[in-house]
């Protein structure tokens, strides 16, 4: 495997995830086993979204919609696919300003981190299903942005979802 400054502290992220796994909102047991996270059970919080409306702007989307897409990743209909593609395009197009842009979606930094990290998970899960490597690329680029991975400069504030994404991305890149 090629060395990369992103994939440091693998053990740290396993420990962080084990400690904070109750913070995860959704995790697929089968996928967890496949990517070396068998210690994470199935997690499926109640998502108060039965179906998606029409995609309008990135700034109006909410965490529940992202979780809905993640939950249905294996069976996306045309409308849901459109959502995933539009989110992807927005992320690529606005990557350099994403830290500021998600402030429109969520005021609170903790909520923003949960939101964007679940979007990263969505990109990774879509790559896993579709093998469209562009989605892996955007996820990796986003994972490099430290300000959306943790609440403060301290490693101990690293979010559970970030550690999940880190280990998920690490597993996927090993397969390439």
């Amino acid at each position, binding site marked *: 495997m*090629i060395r*990369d400054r*992103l*994939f440091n502290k693998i053990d740290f992220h396993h420990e962080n995830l084990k400690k904070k796994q109750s913070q995860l909102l959704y995790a697929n047991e089968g996928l967890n086993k496949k990517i070396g996270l068998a210690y994470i059970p199935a997690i499926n919080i109640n998502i108060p979204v039965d179906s998606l409306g029409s995609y309008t702007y990135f700034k109006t989307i909410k965490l529940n919609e992202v979780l809905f897409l993640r939950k249905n990743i294996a069976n996306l209909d045309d409308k849901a696919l459109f959502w995933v593609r539009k989110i992807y*395009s927005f992320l*690529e197009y606005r990557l*350099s*300003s994403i830290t500021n842009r998600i402030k429109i979606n969520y005021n609170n930094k903790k909520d923003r981190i949960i939101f964007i990290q679940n979007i990263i998970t969505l990109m990774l899960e879509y790559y896993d299903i579709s093998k*469209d*490597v*562009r989605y*892996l*690329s*955007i996820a*990796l*680029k986003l994972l*490099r942005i430290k300000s959306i991975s943790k609440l403060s400069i301290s490693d101990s504030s690293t979010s559970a979802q970030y550690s999940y994404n880190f280990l998920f991305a690490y597993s996927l*890149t090993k397969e*390439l």
Partner: protein
Amino acid sequence: MQKKVAIISPNPKSFYSTSVSELLIRNGVKIEVVFIKKFTIGRFKDEFSRDGLRLIKKIWKKLVLKDDAYNRFTEIENILSFREKENINLDNLTELRNKGVDVYFVDDLNNDFVENTLKEKNVDLTVFTGGGLIKKNILDVSGAGVLNCHMGKLPEYRGMDVVEWPLLLKDFENVGFTVHFMDRGVDTGDILEVFDVKLHDNENIKMLRVRFEPLMTNKFVDTIIGFLKGEVKRKKQEEIDGKQYYIIDEYLYRLSDKNLQEFTKSN
């Protein structure tokens, strides 16, 4: 009747822009007007927000190192050796003023001045050698249109880093470049010609990109001449035929380089 073109350029000393311009003149094409994008703080901010640190590397290579950027690549045909071989002497687009060509530095390639000047000049074609997006108002007053040479094979590989993406995907047969008309989409305009670039032994991405430059320069000019003579026809692209790619993540860049080196390793 002599055909007239406009040139759009990001930098008056661009090896690519000056080489294309001189070769067109040698082939009997009249350059009516040249628009060069000014290097301003605003331009730097826009490009930095899109390209990040890559922009700093690009500026270092093109504006600081210049010829020295090719010191490590003397074993392969690069744009400097190509210029020497073809006896291309134009170093700065502003020298074209001595030949009666109007050369303008502009803040915005899509502004009213550019639009009105193109209308007045009534060119047969506009040749794009870099400088950013071109909008509809300019596309509409550029004769047959604005021609670009895209560093990837269309329709499959639209967008950015399209030398790297096929290598990442081990799609080694689809490394090449395309001469196409610009339209409002990203690399979706009518295609004139698609060219393959054959990979050489023991190649890496930096070497490959250096090799692309003279190949693109040469074939771009040939295709422009062919089009102006009516010998090359436009072919429509369907939007659904290709994917748009963006800047490749640095890990995937290194992987694409590794794939290329492994594929081209000679025994």
